[in-house]
């Protein structure tokens, strides 16, 4: 293993993040506050409780997931797309490193940033609502796994994208709807029966459900299924990346 390279990529990417730390910090604080003002106040006053949890608290896991997923994807996709776009990728290709090391560096940094945003949102939310987390370690583990797996997905998107439009297309057209429809702001059990079945084909449902279980101890789907889903998703992404580097798809030629 070329750990020196992993470390170098990781810290190089993180340095970019630290240069804009204030922005990175303030924008999730503001957007989270807005969500609470809009959803918590306007809707929360009509929906008292969902599954025994106040609505304001109920949306916290979904809110975190929404940001964590979009942040992980955009950080990781941009992180690898940029060197491709400006040509500095030649250095990655000519260095004595393998795909695992490149991925660890870029995905590690993207996941760390997403994790940071997630924690900032959690902290902000705690200012608005009473939060007691039933399984704190499971909560952190779920968050880390989500950051990692969606950073992997972002990495793939970044390699695939041929221009900036494509870079934003997948998150916009696929990921955002999946997350919104994945039960960020409601329980799947609140949907009409037919839609409940449809929802079960949405992978994000399993993530949010599992994450919410870590907070409140209740879930839409069994926790084991949530773990399986995220494990499967991570495996698929890793497989795709392994294939990309083996064939040199979109990068070597």
């Amino acid at each position, binding site marked *: 293993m070329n750990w*020196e390279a992993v470390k170098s*990529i990781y810290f190089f990417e993180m*340095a970019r993040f630290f240069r804009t730390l204030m922005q990175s910090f303030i924008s999730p604080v503001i957007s989270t506050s807005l969500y609470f003002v809009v959803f918590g106040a306007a809707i929360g006053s009509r929906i008292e409780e969902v599954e025994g949890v106040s609505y304001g608290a109920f949306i916290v896991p979904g809110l975190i997931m929404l940001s964590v997923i979009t942040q992980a994807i955009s950080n990781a996709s941009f992180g690898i797309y940029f060197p491709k776009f400006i*040509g500095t990728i030649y250095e990655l*290709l000519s*260095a*004595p490193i*393998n795909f695992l090391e490149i991925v660890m560096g870029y995905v590690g940094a993207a996941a760390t940033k997403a994790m940071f945003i997630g924690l900032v949102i959690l902290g902000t939310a705690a200012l608005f609502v009473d939060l007691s987390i039933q399984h704190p370690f499971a909560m952190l583990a779920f968050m880390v796994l989500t950051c990692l797996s969606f950073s992997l997905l972002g990495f793939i998107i970044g390699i695939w994208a041929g221009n900036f439009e494509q870079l934003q297309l997948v998150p916009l057209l696929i990921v955002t709807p999946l997350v919104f429809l994945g039960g960020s702001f409601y329980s799947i059990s609140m949907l009409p029966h037919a839609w409940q079945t449809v929802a079960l084909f949405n992978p994000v449902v399993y993530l949010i459900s599992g994450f919410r279980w870590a907070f409140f101890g209740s879930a839409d789907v069994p926790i084991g299924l949530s773990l399986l889903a995220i494990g499967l998703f991570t495996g698929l992404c890793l497989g795709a990346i392994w294939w990309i580097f083996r064939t*040199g798809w979109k990068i070597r030629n």
Partner: protein
Amino acid sequence: MTAIVQIDDVKKVYDGGFEALKGVTLNIEEGEILALLGPNGAGKTTLISTICGITQATSGTIRVGGHDVVTQYRAARSLVGLVPQEVNLEPFEKVWNTVRLSRGLFGKAKDDALIEKILRQLSLWDKKDTPIRALSGGMKRRVLIAKALSHEPRVLFLDEPTAGVDVELRRDMWEIVAKLKADGVTIILTTHYIEEAEAIADRIGVINKGQLLLVEDKDALMTRMGQKQLRIELQERISEIPQSLGEFKLELAEDGDSLIYSYDTRAERTGIAKLMAAMSAAGLVLRDLRTSQSSLEDIFVGLVQETGDAA
């Protein structure tokens, strides 16, 4: 001693079906400076890219320091530094950070003293905290060199390092190359400036249309180039060269109308005066004189045209 870079029958067909390398075989000796000379599109960058791992050869093998660049890429690439043709740099990064990243990517432990030394050598030290976008074109090229040197390569590829740079920077670049050679670094540079190849290379390779046409010691090439010919037209036709002129390198041409004398311009004496004296002693009257010289340029153009006609 085995060559530090061994290229064996390397072919490269790009995705579109274009054959950019048509079976290149070349050994590069440790410590030498090899200049690859060739027009645009000859395949110079492609050859370098296949050695450095940026693209893969369609067939053939390449070894660096005895390590196959595909199956033993870690060992092979650790030895190689690359200064690419295009100035590819992150505009918002500082010089120092980007050079340090390069060292890390090659698995070398942090060594700020070394990076300082490299930046000073390249007159970049006072720019170390400048974002790259604020640098001039020549300075950016120096940053590329600093990045390549940061991991102490034993083989350095310079892909058209002086294309489009001013005369001063070109001189600096040549000086840097000479210094590196003194440190034992093997250097391969591509160029389409013949003077550049003449000025710094030990050997010169000519490449065109994906084929290596010639690789030769620069000195041998210069000797060939240093040959000058004197054409002596005679008043009266002769059937053979008189015996008294036997000591001169002479050829009879145009059915005896003229004599061609070959000599080395770099020799102490050309022998022309002596030849003239010997000729008049032999009773030959000359009508006219003409000299011609073959230059590296001629050799180059000739070679390139031949392949052009063949294709």
